[in-house]
């Protein structure tokens, strides 16, 4: 059993096959896309493999400490940021192969023209907290 993170990018991933931005889709196409994502998550819940799924707003701020007693400094958003995370899904599955299979399905969510987007999803594995048997 291992947890994997699927990262969906607004920017920074290689171009999708069906590379039409969402704001140019018809309402039905958007609806179909949302339904697909919903059904996909539901199916994983039913198979006992779902952990979490969240979407993020495109705009964020950079924040850092400015030293003790001072308020944190905020900056940005920076338009030139190359990589931009759109959201994620976390799954708990038996194997890496299963994670790749599911990412493939998620990537096939319908987009413009009702055709699969074939977008690139980033698959990352979680570090577990502690070691297994070691000697």
């Amino acid at each position, binding site marked *: *059993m291992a947890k994997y993170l699927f990262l969906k990018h607004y920017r920074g991933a290689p171009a999708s096959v069906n590379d039409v931005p969402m704001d140019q889709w018809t309402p039905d196409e958007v609806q179909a896309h949302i339904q697909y994502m919903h059904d996909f998550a539901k199916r994983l*819940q039913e198979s006992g493999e*779902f*952990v979490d799924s969240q979407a993020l707003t495109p705009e964020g701020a950079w924040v850092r400490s400015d030293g003790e007693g001072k308020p944190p400094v905020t900056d940005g958003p920076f338009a030139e940021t190359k990589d931009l995370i759109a959201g994620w899904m976390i799954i708990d599955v038996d194997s890496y192969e299963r994670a790749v299979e599911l990412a493939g399905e998620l990537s096939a969510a319908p987009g413009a023209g009702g055709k699969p987007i074939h977008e690139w999803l980033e698959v990352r*594995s979680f570090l577990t*907290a*502690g*070691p297994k048997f070691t000697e």
Partner: protein
Amino acid sequence: MAAGAVDEAQLRDLIPGVLAALVHRGADFATAEDAVQEALLKAVELWPNRRPDDPKGWLITTAWRRFIDLARSDTARRDRELRVSDEPPPGPAESVDDTLQLYFLCAHPSLTSASAVALTLRAVGGLTTRQIAQAYLVPEATMAQRISRAKRTVSDVRLDQPGDLRTVLKVLYLVFNEGYSGDVDLAEEAIRLARQLAATTHDEEVAGLLALFLLHHARREARTRADGSLVVLADQDRSLWRRELIAEGVDILQAALARDRLGEYQAQAAIAALHADAQTSDETDWVQIVEWYDELVRLTDSPVVRLNRAVAVGEADGPQAGLAALAELDPTLPRYTASAAYLHERAGDFATATKLYAEAAAQAQNLAERNHLTLRAATLRQRTLGSHGS
């Protein structure tokens, strides 16, 4: 009877027998399991005030009543005939064999390992879905689905068919390996389940696995610091090792080995016993450990075992011999780089070791190990700089 908190582990020891009794009376496994789980919750609620004289009998009666309710409402819903009734149980009363059958069922080969682990913890272990979900850091709803799917998968499996003990042992090994997170100590739970299993069978590998668990668990306190950081074997405070667990593990292992049917768990336990036997790190009998690794390679032909063997060779015959053994293996093996770093460090080649430790840290699969490797790299780098400066 005395009032007070219920010993949950003791209570859960009764579960396999109770569940088997229901199945013996004709209950289907999935519904019976739900009924037993509810009876268990009732026991936790009621027993502190009034503990029954016959706890197991109480659980069977309570679970059976609950099962009848569940089966009736189920039947009503589906408009079907109730197949079972309050009639007395057919056939013999439940026995240790039933417990064994339950282990087989929950580790059935048709289940994925994740499902088999979850089902074993619930149906044999008597843990709640919430506890299992917390232990595996997934939402409760996800774990509930995983368990009910697993139950459906095995619903047609007859409980009287002989099962495969290897799959049961693998499931327990996975549970033990998970250690603990949340309020359930899965290592303790795996030991409890292995003890229970060992009481039902004389299989040498069951004994081997139990011995391995005990010998490994005995050193748990010494293995990590309070902050969760790793303490390597050589640096462990051996006074923290739990001698009673080591003695028990060694006894169980020796009895199993005497029957001369060696398997991989016995061989792993033998290695753990040799470590546990050494009063200091320097007294470790690495030559014998390498011999046991040779046995393990013969039994498993596992590349991971070969890797561990190479490290043991490094201790027995010196780091160059270890590096030579390592050179024959696939460098993409997990922990290959960490092992190479360690052997180079032992050989006094700190520059190479530093570089390899840093690489190994980037490849680590868990946080404690990554932190440990990063720290080794930093320590050696400082030492190298220091020696250049002086």
